[in-house]
């Protein structure tokens, strides 16, 4: 039975979290920023699942389940806001190339 050290998983999660955070602040497109946030959430999820398996206990996995629900809700509202913003820009007739640069 080969085993994988727990720190490997945690390291992957840490890398993903960092990349996600950097995405959020490097990107100017609100949508891509949101993608970065999803990346961060997933990193946290991986951490929780890792610990859950390590402890042989379910709380971590339940947490991940809830995070997915939250992510879905957040995405719905966030995308609605973005669509709304887009509509503003469109009606205000601004150069399309500058859309959603935040």
């Amino acid at each position, binding site marked *: 039975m080969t085993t994988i050290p727990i720190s490997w998983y945690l390291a992957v999660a840490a890398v993903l979290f960092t990349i996600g955070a950097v995405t959020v602040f490097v990107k100017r497109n609100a949508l891509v920023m*949101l993608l970065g*946030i999803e990346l961060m959430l997933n990193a946290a999820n991986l951490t929780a699942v890792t610990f859950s398996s390590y402890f042989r206990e379910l*709380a*971590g996995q339940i947490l991940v389940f809830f995070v997915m629900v939250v992510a879905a809700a957040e995405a719905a509202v*966030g995308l609605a806001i973005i669509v709304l913003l887009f509509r503003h820009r469109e009606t205000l007739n601004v150069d399309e190339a500058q859309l959603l640069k935040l």
Partner: protein
Amino acid sequence: MESLGINYRAIGPELVLTVTGVLVMLLEAFSPGKKVRDGILAAAGIVLAGVAALALWEEGPVTAFSRMVIVDGFRVFFTLVILLGTLLTIFVSWGFLDEERIPPGEYFALLLFGAVGMTLLVAGNDLMILFLALETITIATYVLAGYRREDLRSTESALKYFLLGAFSSAFLLYGIALLYGATRTTNLAEMARVVSGPLGQAEIVLLMAGAAMLLIGFGFKVTTVPFHVWTPDVYEGAPTPVTAFLSTAPKAAGFAAFLRVFSLTFPPLGIESAADQLASHWVAAVTAMSILSMTFGNFIAIAQTNIKRMLAYSSIAHAGYVLIGVLARDWAAVAFYMLVYTIMNLGCFAIVALWARRGDERVLIAEYAGLGFRQPLLSFPLAIFLVSLAGFPGTAGFVAKFWLFKSAWGAGFPELVIIGVLMTVVSVYYYLYVVIVMFFREPKEEVPRVPLSRAFVAAMVVALVGVFYLGLLPTRVFAVLNTAQNLLAIGQR
């Protein structure tokens, strides 16, 4: 089923609010646009939820739903504060809904669902429920911030709030995951038990990092420097009644959770333990955050020309004061402060909202010129609320600050008290500036008379009575807070 700890009374307020919210939503769907009906229904639901909360007062600390929530004095008191804030927000929104032609049902429903999240946050005994409650609040408030859809400022505010809020939520979540890794649990009481003993090196590091992440997340929610950056923009852009709501009820809930997590779960035990190691750090970090919030909040507020922005910085400064109470471990003082702050800030915003009129057009402080004697029913209450925010004796703001500073001094934070009192002096400058503009400046153009709705007058009366009652006769509330057994608790069973 006994083993699941199903106890509907324990979540009575949430049940009532949710049912009311759904009802209001459905009514709106079938016969839209009936503001009075929906508003009264929502208000009735809030009052009923208040009754349900009061019924829990004698309950003592008990947990329910497999230790997910806890019923203690804090739960009841803060639930009432939040409900009061929501109720006043409904009153404040009365004219706004007509002017903006906003479907009232959905607006009220969102307020009610947001309130559910807040009361749950206050009751949470488990990091998982805290996370969900926090998300419930923020998602509801994202939508509310963007509610004036025709206005780009509002949409912009919602987008900023959303992006920054989600960003900070990710930190919070990572923190929860790390804490779970350090202690094997998400239950606060269980966690407190684990950290009251020594932990291994690896766990200590996880614990520290997790707590730091949590501090970042909470710091964002309760608007403390340096995680405050979203506040001015969001407060400025959001519709004023929503700003009023944002600056009070969710903040109160956030502080309650902050106390439960940091002060109770990781208390400075004074013995060699993981909790004690951690406590020395979070106390240092919170001290820094408190000082930064008080100084930056107050000084930057001086430079503002927009009253909503000014109140946003003032709200950051007040968060700094409350953190002093968190450090002093005086739960009652924090609870009282949040009650007072909710009342006076909502009072302020009620008038700002009314004066801003349709489209939030009149929000510059300069545009308050001449309001003074032309419409004293607006100017005098606003002056009183501002003076109360400045902590003038005789008003509730003074009693709240005095209590807070007094406990902090007794708890060994004299330097914070000195800074706090000094910053209070600074704050007078900008609060007073509004009063001066109102009473001593001639307006550039004719000042119109703003009609006062009945709901607005009701909000004014409640807030004014609150400011003076709590300023002159706070003993009752003090007694209630002080005699509450186990005002703040976390529970294992």
